[in-house]
């Protein structure tokens, strides 16, 4: 029996995209941009009952430079928005963004002078989660949606 026969059953042919995306998809490192009450719900999503670790995203990255997913959880005031933009820009490509809760998505009930009416005016948002605050299931659903987006990504697209 030659070595060629052994190799036959050990080699898979695939694309670089498929392998890379598969790796990225199950090892998202979220940057928790928690500015208000939604962040508490984000914490409970990470805790043992809902366990975001099941989807490979339990490693919160408190440094934006090591993150690839930003979860904006909470109200963003006009004083905070420049900071959020700065942090978003410090995350290296490829990166994705979740707007968690009514406030981050649209300003929520706070239709006042001080609150940004939806962070999507300033940074690109991939998935919005409705709710005030969203249930942990909602956060997990958004995470799965992000994983689907990651799947469609191609290293050729990003330069």
């Amino acid at each position: 029996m030659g070595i060629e026969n052994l190799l036959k059953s050990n080699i898979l042919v695939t694309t670089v995209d498929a392998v890379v995306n598969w790796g990225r998809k199950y090892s998202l490192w979220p940057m928790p941009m928690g500015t208000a009450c939604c962040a508490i719900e984000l914490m409970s999503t990470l805790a043992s009952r809902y366990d975001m670790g099941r989807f490979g995203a339990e490693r919160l990255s408190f440094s934006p430079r090591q993150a690839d997913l930003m979860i904006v959880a909470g109200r963003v005031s006009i004083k905070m928005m420049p900071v959020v933009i700065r942090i978003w820009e410090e995350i290296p490509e490829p990166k994705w963004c979740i707007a968690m809760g009514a406030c981050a998505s649209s300003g929520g009930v706070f239709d006042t002078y001080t609150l940004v009416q939806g962070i999507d005016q300033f940074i690109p948002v991939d998935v919005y989660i409705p709710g005030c605050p969203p249930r942990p299931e909602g956060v997990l659903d958004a995470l799965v949606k992000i994983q689907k987006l990651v799947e469609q990504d191609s290293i050729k697209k990003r330069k």
Partner: protein
Amino acid sequence: MNKRPEIEEIKARFPESYVRDEEFRGDISIVVRKERIFDIFKFLKEDENFLYDYLVDITCIDYLKLNEIERFAVVYHLYTHKNNSRIRIKALVPEKDTVISSVCSLWKGANWMEREVFDLFGIEFIGHPDLSRILTPDDFIGHPLRKDYPLKGRGERENFKVVK
């Protein structure tokens, strides 16, 4: 009804400042004019009988349509550890002259509270070591807790400088 001695003392010592006093469920408020406010506090803090050594809070009221004598009142809450009692002083501040003396030299804790009132109501505290905005961004224009400030702002939330 017996009045608390603070009221009588302030009436006697600062007759031109005293406007009226109010009592609600054992809590007294004294409404005064703003001119001699520093002396009133110095007296309340240093008088042996009162020793109001703790400044609990400073806040402000905008009586825009509430028929008060003046438009604003800066409200001071004091507490004395000696007598275990509280007092509220309201200093009336007219709309045309939104200036009042700072009490930072009596209580260090007044610093940030006065900055907050300055930021949100535009009352200037004379003698404050660093009277700058504390809550709104540094380049904010206007004083948003005044009752005539539009709720949705004047475009601040759409146009602001972005840190790069």
